[in-house]
């Protein structure tokens, strides 16, 4: 068994190396400074505290949406809606941050809670439609992204827009609501602790609570769960709702920690990233932060490469896509793995 774990590590490394090689070849073809470009990609995130901070900052929202998506996946429910939940959570937190007068310690908690409730609402709709009537949650959660994007834009535009600003942004959030950035020059903020709490919470919820148990069994085999006396209708609903809570809190954290005023004009894309993170982590909450860091590392490195060399940002998207494909290729080097297994089995017989 041990050798198999070693194999997994080696396989991932080889896949990453291969993807890098491919990336390097392409870089070599398109860049006049391929060596420098690639080096800045690989080591860029570690060359200054701020850049390292960027990596961590980027991993925080990814952790939330990754957790959210994996929660739904564990219940064998699709959730393409983390995007809308994240967005709407951020919108709701913005409103609380602008309007509610509250002391410094309470304000963020309040904003996060409201963000979570907003996300929960967006998650509840596909959940209940699926649980009650079997309506495809893939369709509804996808469509709700577009709906709640517009609802959020309307709220900001018509009710909380900063009319003195030269762009479509909300009024600034009251400073009491901010999640303080405590490690200058980075922008790492208290939201990181909320993220860690979220990881611990989802882990405990999924693996240590009766509700999480019911959720996982429903995901593994729905008729079995039904037969065992689990109320699968409510499980399906609450899996989406909790997924929405986590994504919504994620949006709120991002808003309170990084932005301090609402300024998105399009869906920010963390929902889809969350799917990537969840699959990379195989839906294991404890693996989610690592997968989020990995993706954040790719992104930050790529940004730095695009910024400091002549390789374009688009090329980097392509290289990222190739890496994601190769790293998650289960059958990549499977023949080799099988030989190891056979050898071990023969020895142990």
């Amino acid at each position, binding site marked *: 068994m041990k050798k198999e774990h070693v194999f997994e590590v080696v396989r991932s490394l080889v896949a990453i190396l291969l993807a890098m090689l491919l990336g390097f070849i392409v870089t070599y073809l398109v860049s006049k400074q391929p060596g420098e470009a690639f080096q800045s990609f690989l080591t860029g995130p570690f060359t*200054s505290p*701020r*850049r390292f*901070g*960027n990596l961590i*900052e*980027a991993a925080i929202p990814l952790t939330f949406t990754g957790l959210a998506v994996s929660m739904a996946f564990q219940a064998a429910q699709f959730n393409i809606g983390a995007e809308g939940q994240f967005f709407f959570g951020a919108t709701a937190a913005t409103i609380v941050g602008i309007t509610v007068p509250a002391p410094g310690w309470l304000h963020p908690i309040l904003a996060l809670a409201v963000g979570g409730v907003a996300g929960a609402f967006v998650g509840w709709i596909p959940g209940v439609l699926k649980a009650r009537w079997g309506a495809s949650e893939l369709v509804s959660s996808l469509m709700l992204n577009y709906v709640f994007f*517009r609802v959020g*834009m309307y709220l900001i*535009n*018509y009710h909380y*827009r900063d*009319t*003195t*600003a*030269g*762009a*479509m*942004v909300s009024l600034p959030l009251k400073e009491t609501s901010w999640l303080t950035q405590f490690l200058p*020059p980075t*922008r790492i903020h208290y939201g990181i602790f909320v993220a860690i709490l979220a990881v611990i919470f989802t882990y405990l919820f999924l693996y240590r609570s009766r509700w999480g148990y019911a959720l996982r069994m429903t995901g593994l085999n729905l008729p079995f769960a039904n037969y065992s006396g689990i109320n699968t209708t409510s499980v399906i609903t609450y899996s989406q709702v909790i997924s929405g809570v986590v994504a919504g809190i994620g949006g709120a954290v*991002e808003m309170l920690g*990084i*932005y301090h005023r609402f*300024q*998105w*004009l*399009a869906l*920010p*894309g963390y929902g889809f990233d969350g799917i990537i993170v969840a699959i990379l982590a195989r839906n294991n909450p404890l693996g989610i932060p690592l997968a989020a860091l990995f993706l954040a590392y790719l992104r930050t490195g790529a*940004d*730095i490469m*695009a*910024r400091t060399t002549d390789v*374009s*940002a688009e090329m980097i998207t392509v290289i990222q896509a190739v890496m994601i494909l190769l790293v998650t290729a289960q059958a990549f080097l499977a023949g080799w793995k099988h030989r190891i297994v056979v050898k071990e089995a023969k020895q142990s017989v």
Partner: protein
Amino acid sequence: SKTADKPAAPGGDQNAKAPLKVALLINGTLGDKSFFDSANAGIERAKKELGVDAKVIEMGNDPSKWEPTLADVSEEKYDLIILGTWQMTEALQKIAPQHPDKKYVIFDTAVDYTKANLSNVYSIEYSQNEGSYLAGALAAMVTNSKLPNANDKHTIGFLGGMDIPVINDFLVGYIAGAKAVDPQIKVAVSYVGDFANPAKGKEMALAQYQQGADIGFNVAGETGLGQLDAAKELKKYAIGVDSDQAMLFKDSDPEKANLIVTSMLKRVDNSLVRAIKLYQEGKLTLGKAETLGLKDDAVGLTNNEFYQKLTDDAMRSKLDDLKAKIISGEIKVDSAMGMDNAKLNEIRNSVKP
């Protein structure tokens, strides 16, 4: 050894052989056929004409990356850092004071000089509402004209990317200009909700044309290009924005180009070349904001072969007249910047078809 060849102090130091190092930060991506492309064009010209050494950095559409990029770039060996849009002002107000040795130019907005020591920042604003005023006036004249594709309705169109202040600034000027020519004018206003969905843009423009508009103004990035296709399909007129859209299609699609009466431009390119030049000469008024408008030729309608073909002398002289009045201050054009929704709605409803 690296510190030894640190670039010489900026500002017309003649003995410095090292070219001026300039960075242009794009908080979005190139290819918008709008002011980022225009800024990029300005930098290209500055490279050629002024001999600067420049790098253009696309920061993408994720706002959370913009501030750290600015901070990063400020630590690198650039002399002059150029950036644009209101969204960058808060970041710049924070970072510029930390790098007093660096100089910054921000275009299409102004920093708040009362907020910090921003003596190293030069701001350029454009009165796009003034240019749009002229576009509105022209549109009103076209819809009332005898041009082959004009109808007898007093309706013109406006296709916005999103219902947001920058876009509405164009709209407010456009409506005002149109009303100045024809108080009866109706303006069909649609927002696509997306800057990168040309097919949807075309669809909405078609809807406007079918509901009676015979000319429309698109202010919607790539989405807006869909309006031009709609114009071609229904044989209606269009007014472009931010780049000379008739010239874009002059060779690839002359039929379409023939329907684009003019385009309303913000000449970011000119203003940046000017700023870099002033800087090299040591004359840039750092620590101040300047508003460039019709009088500086920083905004205005394009004058090309199609414009000449589609407009007559009367139209052109009317436009010249209005332009002169705006420059002289006789006409004051409202701005949507800082306008609340109630006022905005009042304006939109006053011309609702």
